[in-house]
Structure formats: structure tokens, C-alpha cells
């Protein structure tokens, strides 16, 4: 294994922003900031008390849009994945996060941050499964 050069400061700063944003959603709306849960909940049923989901996602989309406007280099995609691979990846992420009740944000950040064993186990499993997948697919060519 070789460790690539990387900048830990933006990674850490971005992480603190993600943690703060998630804590704000808990403080304001009393909800877990799990993106798959928020999106999936919106898809499975609509009721008037779901507005917070829609506006959170709107903030996520517009915040990403603003960041792309200011710093398009933060959205560079060097993977060159083919159509079928992207399609399969999206399907698996959608299926897996809903069946497994969470993703990187819901289990990885909010769940582990609450010291939930269930979320810790889920996170170890999806990181391990992701690492195995990249091992067998060869990573970036």
C-alpha cells in the first residue's frame, strides 16, 4: 500500500461543517440528517409534516449548485465510469441504503456520533464491502 498525497485540512474542515449541519437539523427539527432516509421517506409517502425533508434536500441541491458555481473543480469526476456501471452503482446505492436503513451520513456520521452499535456495524460493513469492490474492480485505471 502506498499513501497518496492529500490535504487533511479541507477534509477536516468539511467534516466539521457536515457534523455541524447534521447537529443543526437535530437541534431545529429533531431529525437525523441521513440523506437516504430523508430522500427515501419523501419518496415513500407524502404528508404535510414532511416539508422539512423537501426543504433540506432543496438546501442540499442549491448549496451544491452554489459550490459548483464558485469552485467547479470540487466536482471533478476522474473515474470515467461507463453508463452501465453508473446505472448499477446508483441502483445498488438506492436499494442498499433503504434496505439497510442508512448511508454514510445517517449511519456513518449521525449513528456513530450517537454511539449506536447498529450504525457502527453497518458502517464497517459498507466500508468493507466498498473496499472489496474497489479491490476487485481495480480502482481508478
Amino acid at each position, binding site marked *: 500500500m502506498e499513501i497518496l498525497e492529500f490535504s487533511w485540512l479541507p477534509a477536516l474542515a468539511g467534516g466539521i461543517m457536515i457534523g455541524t449541519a447534521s447537529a443543526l437539523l*437535530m437541534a431545529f427539527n429533531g431529525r437525523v440528517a441521513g440523506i437516504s432516509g430523508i430522500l427515501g421517506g419523501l419518496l415513500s409517502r407524502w404528508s404535510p409534516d414532511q416539508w422539512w425533508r423537501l426543504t433540506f434536500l432543496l438546501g442540499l441541491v442549491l448549496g451544491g449548485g452554489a459550490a459548483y458555481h464558485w469552485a467547479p473543480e470540487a466536482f471533478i469526476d476522474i473515474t470515467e465510469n461507463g453508463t452501465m456501471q453508473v446505472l448499477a452503482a446508483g*441502483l445498488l446505492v438506492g436499494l*442498499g441504503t433503504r434496505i439497510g436503513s442508512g448511508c454514510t451520513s445517517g449511519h456513518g456520521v449521525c449513528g456513530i456520533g450517537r454511539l449506536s452499535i447498529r450504525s457502527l456495524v453497518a458502517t464497517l460493513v459498507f466500508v468493507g464491502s466498498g473496499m472489496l469492490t474497489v479491490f476487485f474492480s481495480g*480502482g481508478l485505471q
Partner: protein
Amino acid sequence: MIRYSFFSFLSGLLFALGLSVSGMTEPGKVIGFLNITRSWDPSLVFVMGGAVITYFILFRLIHKRSAPLFALQFSIPERKDIDLPLLGGAVLFGIGWGLGGFCPGPAVASIFTGKPNVLLFAGSMILGMVIADQLRPLLSGKTKHLLNQGFWKTGNPDKKLEPATATGTSSNSN
């Protein structure tokens, strides 16, 4: 409560900025983290570490209150059991994550880039979520069956299974 939804908008906005500052909106960086046996990019350790520690501290402070500022109560998952859907779902999610380099947050935050791969990923992810919701009754039936046989049981005293129910659901799922 439409007017209180403005605050979740602010949270989503900050969340997206955090994702782009941290580099998680670059699928190549995520795959670089998962590529631990070859050339490894440890960025995600710092992203997750920063996010988890911040959330851990703030959650403890927030949870001292009896209720959130703009909702009647905290909605916090209370399940503690490690069941088959949790593990199987995480395995599927990990495979998709490794193939695409996107998890749900960065995918949604990247929609405005208009890149074909982002839109294709987001669309198929939504389709996967809808399919998962259709599968849910079937999956929970199967799990109850397994739980009843003693597999995966790590102790969840709240959910005592009725033998009759378990038999009924297992026959449906087979």
C-alpha cells in the same frame, strides 16, 4: 409546518458546502479512499472523523433539551438489533459506493453540475429506493423467519415474535 422548514433548508445548505469543501463530491477521491490495498487517499478518514466528533459533542448538548427548537419531539432511531436487512443492505450499498464513488449526499449535492453520470446515478438511486420500499414487506417477513430460528438475534426485548405470525410471514416470503 412550512415556516419551520426554513431551518432544515439552512442545514441542507451547510451540509452541501461541507461535502464540497471536504472533497467528497469528487467520486475519484472516494474511490481513492476505498482503494486501500493499492494507492490510498486517507481524506475520508478526516472528513468522517471531523463530522463524527463534531456531531458527538453537539448531540450531547442538544439532547439535554427536552425537545428540539422547532418540532414537538426528537425523532431518534432506537433499534439496537443487528438484523439481516441491516447487513445485507450495507453490503449492497458498499458495492454501489465502490462502483460509482457516490453515496446519496454527494450525488444529490452534485445535481446542479448537470453531468450525465451524476444525473444517471441520482435517477437510478431513486429507482433503487422505490424498489426497496416495494420489497420491504417481503424482506421483513424473511427476517422474522430467520430471527425466529435464532439467527442474527443480538437481543431486542421489545420485539417478541409470535410463533404464529412468524410462520405466516415466512410462508409468504418463500
